């Protein structure tokens, strides 16, 4: 149980990477942008990949009537997410500590993992909902109003994951370093759980 608890203490710490590294990255490439434009989505706001990228993305998006990209103060998510992540890191480390001193069983580790997964899925859902809104809720006075082949108005939601063509741009949306660190950290907590589960008989005898 000691090893499992130590892993449980380390795993959540990987989530601290989210305070420094971006969670998600969206790149927009087009023939006239040999250096693609890009945005890094951090838990506390959207930032440039290269300086002025957000300004230039906004400049292009205004043709099709998209709103400007949100500033941190424009969305409650950017103030809430850091609190949630910080809280979950603290909670995970506490679970590990309590496990180490045999105050809680390994099942709590799984509990943390499940809670984090639910929050993660909610976060992704929220993120996707924002992208759909951002890409479909367009200014009715947009300079260019384009239609799909079936006559419905064209929308411009970037993909949540992977690659898509949007007008002259090829958009690539992928998890970034922060997300990968989070996956590693969450996997570690799962490992902690399995280690605890495997040694449960030994633990029981010890107890």
């Amino acid at each position, binding site marked *: 149980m000691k090893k499992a608890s130590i892993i449980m203490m380390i795993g959540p710490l990987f989530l601290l990477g989210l305070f420094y590294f971006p969670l998600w990255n969206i790149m927009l490439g087009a023939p006239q942008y040999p*250096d693609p434009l890009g945005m890094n989505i951090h838990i506390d706001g959207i930032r440039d990949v290269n*300086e*002025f990228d957000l*300004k*230039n993305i906004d*400049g292009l998006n205004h*043709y099709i009537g998209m709103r400007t990209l949100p500033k941190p103060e424009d969305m409650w998510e950017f103030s809430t997410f850091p609190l949630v992540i910080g809280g979950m890191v603290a909670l995970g480390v506490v679970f590990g500590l309590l496990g180490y001193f045999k105050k809680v069983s390994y099942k709590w580790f799984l509990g943390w993992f499940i809670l984090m997964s639910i929050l993660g899925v909610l976060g992704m859902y929220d993120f996707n909902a924002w992208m759909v809104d951002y890409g479909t809720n367009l200014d009715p006075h947009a*300079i*260019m109003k384009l239609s799909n082949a079936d006559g419905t108005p064209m929308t411009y939601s970037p993909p949540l994951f992977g690659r898509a063509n949007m007008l002259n741009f090829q958009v690539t949306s992928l998890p970034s370093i922060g997300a990968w660190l989070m996956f590693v950290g969450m996997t570690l907590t799962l490992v902690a759980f399995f280690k605890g589960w495997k040694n449960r008989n030994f633990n029981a005898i010890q107890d």
Partner: protein
Amino acid sequence: MKKYQFQLIALIGSVLLFSGCGNQNGKGISNGALSSSNAEKVYVAPGEQDEFYAFMSGGYSGNLTVYGLPSGRMFKEIPVFSQFPTSGYGYSEETKPMLETSFGFVPWDDAHHPDISQSKGELDGRWIFINGNNTPRIARISLSTFETEEIIELPNSAGNHSSSFITENTEYVVAGTRFSVPVPQRDMPISEYKSNFKGALSFISVDPDHGHMDIKFQLMMPGFNYDLSHPGRDKSHGWFFFTTYNTEEANSLLEVNASQNDKDFIAAVNWKKIEEYVNNGGGTMMPANYAHNVYDEATHTATSTMKKEVLTVDPLKVPGAVYFLPTPKSPHGCDVDPTGQYIIGNGKLSADLTVHSFDKMIAAIEGEKFDGEAYGIPILKFEDVLAGTVKSGGLGPLHTEFDGKGNAYTTFFISSEVVKWKLGTWEVIDRKPTFYSVGHLMIPGGNSRKPFGKYVVAMNKITKDRYLPTGPELEHSAQLYDISGDKMELIYDFPTHGEPHYAAGIPAELLAPKSKKIYRLDENKHPYAVTSPDGSKVVREGNEVHVYMSMIRSHFTPDNIEGIKVGDKVYFHITNHEQDFDVPHGFAMIGQNSSELLIMPGQTKTSVWEPKQPGVWPFYCTDFCSALHQEMQGYVRVSPANSDVPLTFTLGE
């Protein structure tokens, strides 16, 4: 990728085809394989970039053009001494001061010899300097913005030709006088030229941090014609060498009268010695009047200041500072090899090249072996300083550069050829014809301690039949030779703009990474800049109206202005709010007695308009900046002088 391969094959195929029907390049080689490999050497595929930058002087265009090597593609014309309506240089309020001189506004010059700044004798790619020959001036151009940043006028000079060459740590940019003149200028009979005129050699210090130029001293030499010059380097660093002609001091029909002496001189100037003399208070300050024009990148604005005195040095007051090296037949180019040992005089009216030895020169000076003097300046004995003679077999040697592998390459104007010869043995290794009448040549870094000896570019004076004819007036023609092997190979022809008298080349990797992409709006210190979208306004001060305007894809703010009156002087101060690479916007106003403006991202430029009739007058963006470029326009309402239409400015109302 497949497409490019196909194009390459097609290109090679067409070269094979054409070379099959009569090759006109010199020796009439119709070897298809050879030609196709030459095609590959100069072929820079779509999307790929050249290996070298070449900066070619524009001669009578007054500007500097930027080319790629080996492709010969032209990238940019940099306005230097000439008004340039393409960008508004010399027309905008910010850049008009750049062309101020003691003669007033001079909107043109004859730009001759570009030279790139050096550190420890190697190209450092910070700045490029070029001389204006007609109204003596030296310009400094930034190699991060590729824009002219500074122009200094030279007093006491005329025909600023033996310029603008740089010492090996860019301590000085040096400028000599081709047409000696009375100093100070005065009303006197021309026939009294002899011994009364002077040839000033100007040593202009260059600030190592920001590049600013200042005339440290002018060496007042006898009234010869100082034709070309080069600094010593490495062992001869501290010396400067100038070719002279017309040591006869003729003032008329020079083509005969200045060619009578069997030998003219190379003047060897120990500038370190003179610098020391000047630093210790030597020299005579004399009244003068010359312009110093500086462009500030932060304010995007130039200022012109008239300077009122210049420090002159009499060469006789600094013993050991100047010597004459006899050199046959009106030498033109004066070139120093990368080791600094050999000083080459290209006697343009002879067949041979004269090479002087720096070591021998020093020995002769120390041995005081003089062969008389001219105006008190000791003349060294020709035999004592001669290192060797290149028996070229050509006619009219003009200019020599070096490949860094012990070889020199000399152009021959009269016999139209480039001759490759070996330093030290003076033997001719190879010769190749040029088409036609070649002036200077250029090897990237070929006048530094570290040449990049892969290509030589020959700049021809006569084009004739090289390209499709365009009436009596033709562009000049450059030719590219591959010099990586023992034998030179002519691989390409390309037309050049204006008349390139000389060029400077540099590996692309030294410049391309630091080429600026935009000007930062948050660093814009222009007093009339609009740096936030809501900062636009229109202000009347008497009959002057200042429009603080911003532009971004695809509108001007404001785009409707009313309350302007006939007789007003309207200043449009326009700031480009883009911060994206290669998104300029233009500005043009109907009937304006000026040029358009082309404004780079983050930059502010000002255009003056004096409306002459009441009406509603449109202006528009001249750069196809976006899909909505055609919509980028606005109107100014002009009312009669006595009207009381209020001053208003709007966007989107």
